[in-house]
């Protein structure tokens, strides 16, 4: 993927750029907002990482201007500590997701992948599959190898979220936001507990594990 990073802090900017390059992306790093806007307009990017505070032109204005010119490149906003307001403002300005510094690289990477591959507007499937696991959304039933599994509503929701994003890493915060709509850091490993309970039902009795732990990032469900 071709990714544009607008970040004025040298250390953090190169941390992001280097990390993304290592993952095989092509990255342009720019520290000034006005220059960044020009670059975003001429280059065609698959995703952008934009810091809220930039010299020249602030990140919000960059994205607002882009959106006004019908440029729909997915944008992940970065912001300094401290905001409740910022998140909503960023999303209203046309950002697709929002990340508070400091963040782990895994979190950033997973979120960029998530916004750059937004589910296309195709007919909603009624059956989700991963290997021999099947989720029937109409009858709210889950089977593995033909055997019906008894899931609690929240376990069902968690599994559905992972299945819909098969092959993509979902971080703990992403799961928390999507499944429970919780947007603060509860400083606990509750998500891990939820995952381990889900695993107890869908993975433990079987030979292959479907839910994979991605070190330093989160979880991913795989076809095998």
């Amino acid at each position, binding site marked *: 993927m071709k990714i544009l990073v607008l970040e004025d802090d040298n250390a953090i900017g190169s941390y992001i750029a280097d990390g993304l390059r290592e993952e095989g992306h092509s990255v342009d790093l720019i520290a000034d907002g006005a220059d960044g806007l020009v670059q975003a307009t001429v280059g065609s990017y698959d995703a952008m990482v934009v810091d809220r505070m930039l010299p020249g032109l602030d990140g919000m204005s960059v994205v607002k201007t882009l959106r006004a010119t019908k440029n729909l490149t997915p944008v992940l906003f970065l912001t300094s500590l*401290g905001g*409740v307001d910022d998140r909503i403002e960023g999303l209203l300005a046309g950002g697709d997701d929002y990340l508070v*510094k400091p963040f782990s690289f895994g979190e950033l990477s997973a979120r960029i992948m998530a916004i750059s591959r937004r589910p296309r507007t195709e007919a909603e499937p009624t059956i989700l599959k991963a290997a021999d696991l099947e989720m029937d959304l109409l009858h709210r039933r889950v089977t593995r190898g033909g055997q019906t599994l008894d899931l609690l509503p929240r376990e069902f929701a968690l599994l559905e979220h992972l299945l819909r994003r098969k092959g993509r890493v979902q971080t703990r915060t992403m799961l928390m936001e999507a499944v429970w709509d919780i947007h603060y850091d509860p400083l606990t490993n509750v998500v891990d507990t*939820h995952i381990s309970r889900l695993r107890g039902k869908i993975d433990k009795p079987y030979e292959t594990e479907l839910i994979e732990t991605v070190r330093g990032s989160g979880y991913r469900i795989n076809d095998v």
Partner: protein
Amino acid sequence: MTPVFGFNQIRSTPLRLTFLLLTIFALAALACLAVAFEVTRTSIDAAVAAELQQTINEYRGIRDGDDLTERLAEAAAKTDADVRILFYVPDRGSVVSNVASFPPVSGVTVVSDSFIRAKSGSVSDSYLALSARVGAGHLIVAQSREQVEEMGEIFLAVLLIGLLPALLIAGLAGLWVARGARIKIDAIQHTLLELKGGTLSARIEGVEDQNDDLSGIGQEVNRMARAQEALVASIRQVSSDIAHDLKTPIQRVAVVLDQVMNKTTLTEGQEELLSKAIRETERIVQTFQSLLQLAQIEGGAVRDRLHSVDLAEISRDIVDFLEVEAEERGFALSLRIQPDVATCVRGDRHLLSQLIGNLVQNALTHVPQGGPVVVGVTRTGGETVLTVSDNGPGIPESERSKVLQRLYRLDQSRTTEGNGLGLSLVSAISDLHGARLTLEDNKPGLTVRIAFPATEPA
């Protein structure tokens, strides 16, 4: 507002003073009237007695016995017994009088009508009588005391139409003045309670441009509160300034640690140490995040974003999320939502879920032995009330207002995790929503009760 003349107001100082002054005034007025009445009565009686004496002296001047009897009979015949009674008992012969009978008296005596029998017509209620030896017999001359009685009536009238209305007017005026003072005292008391409860913006209204003593006290209280508020504001400013200044270096440290973790090959021991450093950094970041978030919430900008949200639904989500953690740690987290009532409040979903989450996690952290933790949503008197109850050690009454202050922690909880900002955030979020937060005794344990103002259902 409490009724100004209610029973419990009897204890108020201004009202007591009013009643005391009224009583003194009434007693003094009554005493004056009584003395005046007595003096006047005595002088009237003295004048009457002198007149009686003179009448007797006149009859004594008549030497001839027959002439005396004749003169007395003549006088008795034309004297109205209602005004004056003549009663002559000669040593020999029949009584000469204008009444049928009269009791024997000696000296000046008051005689009531029950001892007198009238001949015809009526007699007065009471008489002042004087008897003396005149000629060859005893003469009693008695003068009606109607004058004295009339005077008594006049005094009673003075009392009824003069004193009682005056007392009534003075009483009402006193109550009015006492009410004014009472309102000010109530305002001062109320404001002091609010200040004590941590509402540093509380001020006493309507005392600034007045110069009575109570207003003076009120002005002093206001001055004190202003100073206190400024001090607290500057402490807050300093803590959020520090957080702002340290933000960038902390972000960089976090980045570097993450890079070391992911980009270098580490021995198991090194990795463990690094993980510890990362966890500690996360805690620092979280503390800073909380401090900055507090500053932002207290700044009030979020207030514009509030809209109708369902407190029951938010509680359900957060309980659903934290239930497994509670279970792992030996707690039974449950939800009690009053059925069939409106549970919507004007609020911010994310902040409210943080509020409930903080309260639940607070219970999980501070109750050492585990047990039930209940999140409740009810509707009482138009308010939607959120409660989070545990059966842990609770918070002593004296510490309750302090725990809501920033970074305050009870001594016994110094050893447990947390940065002391959880309850401050809860308190700030609750204030932002215009809700009332109280800490109550769950007997045993703690109940945190947050009452949200009434709203229209969405």
